[in-house]
């Protein structure tokens, strides 16, 4: 039953993978942008990527369940040794899809995850340097590695999978489905329609789960791969986390034990299970040893994965930006970003439309016919004085804040209105702090401000976060002669303003 589901998932992956390939450019220069295009502009593109992403994870789950069942039932025993061994190879192929596919979005996560993978391969005794060359990682992950991974993912692995599945299914048909131990005497159930019915129901349930995941759970996209980003902490996909954690147990020269020796031994043990256990078929309830092995493996895997999850540091604020969304807000000036903040704070959206959308009680703020800033500020203070009969409540903000809000509304049009939804809260809050402290009186962001101090775009290239934080507290200690006043930010404020400065485009 799990076998049929796995086959179905494989075919679904092939289908969604081919569709993604129709809109995907497999080079590091274009991969990221074409994926963003799929996510943001192509109809149903987000759904296709969701199906492919979650399909991969489900495939791992189902394949492992399939193997566990076969193992518990002793379905690897004579005459089905070869069926089992081909199955183990199929598991490895499934993992290889996960490994190679991980790089293809070419975001930071993909890039850094693959850097770790290739470096692990380099540790292999004797074979290491050759493996690295095979993976195209001549010291670094670049265009060659990308081409190799893509080639493996779409050209080499699919036909290999088809061939292995054909052998696997042929062997299953030849030797028959392994009977449940104790059931050998009963006549075999008919394949059609009874077995097909059961498989269909299982496949349908799996498909519903997959579809719901693809629709409901957003697959994030991080920022474009940045090989100079030294602060990034790579994490592998969840099903490789246990390996990642194993690695931490071994240090120094022993590291190779965790990264190469143990995994290789485990694979060999799995492969040769039929020859290690040569006993006769027994009822599953009597296979206490096999049950213990499965239990131990599950506990070990679960424990290592849990430990890896527990030790994962909270991702830096900036890593929480979803780059599969429009990111026009990155181009806004701090005044405009702060305007977005007041707009949200005052909940203007509950009565006004911006650009397209259902007409609401108030006028569309992104439509033409501009009033002047001074008109708007008067209107904010006493709405009915400017527009007789207006039902709008007056806005309780200071003059400077109202000015900021008016400045933003003056620039609002249907094209940049999306920033109201997509600008992440930390950046809006950071911009509010920036405005309140009048940083723009000496600094420039996105071309707006004064050039007395250094422009703040690209500060992430020049300084570390720690440096910037220390500099806020005591500018003269780090930049002698600086006229910048020290700032007393609360820890939250400090985190937000620094995160905001560090996401600014270069």
């Amino acid at each position: 039953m799990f076998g049929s589901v796995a086959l179905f998932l494989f075919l679904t992956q092939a289908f969604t993978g081919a569709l993604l390939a129709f809109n995907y450019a497999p080079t590091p220069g274009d991969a990221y942008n074409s994926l963003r295009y799929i996510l943001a502009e192509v109809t149903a593109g987000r759904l296709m990527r969701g199906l492919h992403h979650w399909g991969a994870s489900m495939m791992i789950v189902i394949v492992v369940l399939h193997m566990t069942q076969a193992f518990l039932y002793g379905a690897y025993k004579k005459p089905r040794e070869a069926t089992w061994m081909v199955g183990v190879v199929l598991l490895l192929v499934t993992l290889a899809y996960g490994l190679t596919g991980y790089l293809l979005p070419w975001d930071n996560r993909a890039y850094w995850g693959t850097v770790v993978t290739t470096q692990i391969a380099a540790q292999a005794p004797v074979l290491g340097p050759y493996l690295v060359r095979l993976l195209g990682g001549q010291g670094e992950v670049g265009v060659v590695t990308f081409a190799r991974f893509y080639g493996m993912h779409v050209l080499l692995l699919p036909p290999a999978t088809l061939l292995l599945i054909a052998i696997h299914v042929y062997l299953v048909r030849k030797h028959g489905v392994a009977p449940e131990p104790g059931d050998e005497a009963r006549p075999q159930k008919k394949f059609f329609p009874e077995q097909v019915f059961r498989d269909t129901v299982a496949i349908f349930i799996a498909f519903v789960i997959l579809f719901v995941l693809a629709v409901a759970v957003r697959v994030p996209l991080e920022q474009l791969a940045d090989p100079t980003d030294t602060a990034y902490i790579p994490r592998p996909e969840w099903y490789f986390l246990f390996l990642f954690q194993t690695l931490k147990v071994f240090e120094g020269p022993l590291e190779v034990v965790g990264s190469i020796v143990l995994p290789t031994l485990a694979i060999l043990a799995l492969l040769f299970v039929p020859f290690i256990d040569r006993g006769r078929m027994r009822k599953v309830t009597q296979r206490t040893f096999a049950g213990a092995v499965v239990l131990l493996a599950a506990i070990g895997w679960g424990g290592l994965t849990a430990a890896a999850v527990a030790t994962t540091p909270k991702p830096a604020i900036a890593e929480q930006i979803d780059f599969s969304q429009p990111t026009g807000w990155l181009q806004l000036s701090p005044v405009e970003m702060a305007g977005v903040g007041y707009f949200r704070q005052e909940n203007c959206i509950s009565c006004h439309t911006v650009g397209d959308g259902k007409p609401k009680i108030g006028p569309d703020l992104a439509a033409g016919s501009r009033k002047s800033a001074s008109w708007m500020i008067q209107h904010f203070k006493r709405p009915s004085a400017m527009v007789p009969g207006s039902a709008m409540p007056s806005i309780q903000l200071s003059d400077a804040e109202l000015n900021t809000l008016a400045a933003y509304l003056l620039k609002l049009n249907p094209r940049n209105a999306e920033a109201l939804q997509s600008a992440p809260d930390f950046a809006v809050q950071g911009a509010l702090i920036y405005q309140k402290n009048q940083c723009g009186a000496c600094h420039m962001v996105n071309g707006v401000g004064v050039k007395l101090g250094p422009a703040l775009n690209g500060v992430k290239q020049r300084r570390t976060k720690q440096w910037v934080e220390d500099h806020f507290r005591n500018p003269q200690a780090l930049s002698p002669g600086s006229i910048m006043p020290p700032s007393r930010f609360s820890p939250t404020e400090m985190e937000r303003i620094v995160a905001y400065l560090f996401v600014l485009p270069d």
Partner: protein
Amino acid sequence: MGQAVDTPIASGTSRRGFYLTFIYGLWSLIGAALAAPALLYLLLPPKVRRESEWIDAADVTALQPKIPVEVVFRKNRVDGWKITSEKETAWVVKLSDRETVAFGPQCTHLGCAYHWDEAKTEFLCPCHNSVFGVDGTVVSGPAPRPLDRYETKIENGKLLLGPLGASSGSKA
């Protein structure tokens, strides 16, 4: 006795029928749930980021009446995930004091580049001898419709070009 044999067969067929209904039904649902988004994905146009761009192409005051000028300008073209800056060409003609038009540079027959024949005062396509009048209408040859025109507007004596639209109408 006959009845005793009949009953299990009858119930057997209905169970089989039940299985078959479910098998076909569930697979149809799966197929539809995959095919429908796939068709939308492939057939619907992507959401266009239409940047309403007007390009300054020519100085209207410098144009001579009914003498086409080939102008070359750069334009941002949105091509899937790429925005490329491209060279584009237009044939600009001042037809009257009130009307200035800009033709797309390709023959409407098979897309060859045509040129202006000063002696005959006609546009001539070298590929299959399509001939167009100065106002873009087909004079002779296989071209199926008049020359395509850019959207135009005039601001402060400058001719601004918008997107290129296919001309409608027949040869006339």
